[in-house]
């Protein structure tokens, strides 16, 4: 297989996935220890996210993510320390200064817009950014993601429709992990693949194995190039699996079997990536071990940093309601 990216980049992608996984696992541990109140996980989704991130010009293109996009965020320069501030609701959390729940991202320096919890509302924001890019005649692209369940929302449909009608430079990622909390895909949609929704909206739709970071990267790259060259939007469905419960508030045993979960763990995106990269001689067990070591150190350090960081002052909650009140500018 001809590698589509330089070795260094591939290693960076692998590193990002690994770091994401270790941060995510630590978050679950912190939750068990009662040190954080909530976590919503990206475990199983890492390959799809890193594939998407490396298909855009990071820091130049725009991103409208959703709550599972930890790996994507790390690829855009979000740091482990920042994630810990976010998890713990500490001062300096760049997403919201502790106002939003964890994993409700925003990172202005990386062109990541703020999203909310009501699902799919970011879809029309992405279309609007695409419209602005087009009106200004720029060559930027915007990518946006939602879960497959969220495509049941009229919010999603209307946003994609705008981009299709106006041929806007947007890539709409549908992260299909088969479940919306407990509700399976069959109760959300009557099409076999979420990507088939593209057929009704008049844009290309591709369904891809989102457990394989290189496949995801390649499909995303095509879609992003297409958007950048003015040919319009694409829907990319990344087929993944959520290996953990929906969130730290969930208990998934009521709605799916342990066998099913175990089966999908065989296709863990980190294992697949490691196998590919080792097969290509890009990664060695030694290199992997070194990365693990570095991840552990970074995560440990980030936790210490987060724990010693102060909480916001209560009175910070009073602003900024209006742009006039902004005090962090």
């Amino acid at each position: 297989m001809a590698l589509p990216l330089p070795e260094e980049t591939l290693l960076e992608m692998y590193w990002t996935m690994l770091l994401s996984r270790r941060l995510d696992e630590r978050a679950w541990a912190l939750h068990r220890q009662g040190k954080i109140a909530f976590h919503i996980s990206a475990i199983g989704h890492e390959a799809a996210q890193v594939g998407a991130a490396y298909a855009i010009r990071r820091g130049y293109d725009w991103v409208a993510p959703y709550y599972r996009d930890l790996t994507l965020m790390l690829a855009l320069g979000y740091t482990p320390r920042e994630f810990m501030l976010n998890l713990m609701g500490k001062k300096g959390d760049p997403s919201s200064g502790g106002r939003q729940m964890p994993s409700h991202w925003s990172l202005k320096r990386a062109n990541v817009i703020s999203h909310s919890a009501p699902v799919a509302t970011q879809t029309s924001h992405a279309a609007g950014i695409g419209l602005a890019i087009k009106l200004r005649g720029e060559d930027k692209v915007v990518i946006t993601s939602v879960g497959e369940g969220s495509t049941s929302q009229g919010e999603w449909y209307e946003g994609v429709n705008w981009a299709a009608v106006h041929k806007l430079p947007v890539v709409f990622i549908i992260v299909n992990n088969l479940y919306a909390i407990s509700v399976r895909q069959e109760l959300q949609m009557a099409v076999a693949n979420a990507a088939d929704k593209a057929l009704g909206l008049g844009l290309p739709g591709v369904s891809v194995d989102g457990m394989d970071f290189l496949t995801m990267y390649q499909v995303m790259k095509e879609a992003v190039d297409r958007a950048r060259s003015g040919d319009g939007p694409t829907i990319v469905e990344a087929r993944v699996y959520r290996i953990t419960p929906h969130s730290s508030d969930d208990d998934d045993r009521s709605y799916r079997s342990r066998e099913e979960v175990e089966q999908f763990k065989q296709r863990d995106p980190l294992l697949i990536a490691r196998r590919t990269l080792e097969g290509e001689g890009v990664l060695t067990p030694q290199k992997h071990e070194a990365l693990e070591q570095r991840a552990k150190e970074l995560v440990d350090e980030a936790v210490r940093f987060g724990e010693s960081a102060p909480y916001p002052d209560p009175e910070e909650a009073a602003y900024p309601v209006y742009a006039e009140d902004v005090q962090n500018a």
Partner: protein
Amino acid sequence: MPEATLIEAIRQAMDEELARDERVFIVGEDVGKRGGVFRATQGLYEKYGPQRVIDAPLAELSIVGVGIGAALYGMRPICEIQFADFIHPAFNQIVNEAAKMCYRSNGEWTVPLVIRAPYGGGIGGGLYHSQSVEAFFTHVPGLKVVIPSNPADAKGLLKAAVRDPNPVLYFEPKKGYRLIKGEIPAGEYLVPLGKANVSRPGRDLTLITYGMTHYYALKAAQIVATEGIETEIIDLRTLLPIDKETLLQSVKKTGKVLIAHEDNLTGGYGAEIAAILADQAFTDLDAPIKRLAGPDVPAVPFSHPMQDWFMPNAEKIAAAIRQLAAF
């Protein structure tokens, strides 16, 4: 009388209504196998099957819209909105459709529909899992709006809501789901919509409230009672239509009014109560009408110190009582 939590009372009400009337069914996100994210429908899927307890697509406007259609056909749907914060996509269906159906068809079509949604903060839910949304709907003629404060009312009001021929919004104080316990009268138990409850008699001032804030209000009244201030508390239970009678009677007696709710102040439900009293009880009033409400920020922040800053509690209410009593 057996003790139950608020959420058990709600579950009991649904269970009994499902058993009583086969036109009743439940529709919402994760209400089936999962039993609801707060477990309000736990066991009902197993008991009544997927035709009576339906896992909907993740799409609130159609959860309500489909409910309206089924209600027009003669069914009695109970729609669950997973969090009140997510009722906004269904606003058009609730306000332009459900609320106006009876009037616009000159009574030929009615919409016997219940929409349940957990509301309120203090549970680390941040901006989008903590909202109070009642004021958007208490402005809408054609809707009924109910908020229980204790298990007995929760059960009796929900059962009455299911039997009501109109669209009823039933908001549940989620922080109280397991926190608030109480006895529930045995047997068939209904609490009529539209009737407020004087949950504590008192002579010095009238404290008007509902839902979770009522829980704090009771505690606050206990605190100030030790200081000799006797607070009369009115638990509204039904916010629309408003039980003006009960309010006016109490104010005639006390002459002082404090209105308390968690939702933000400006344009909140308390404004209407204050406005009614500033007109119809003007000559009975001995002091300015006071409101204690959430601050005018977009929603409850996540981080603990900021959440605490936002939330009402017994101490804040006690302070407001003292100030008003001293007027």
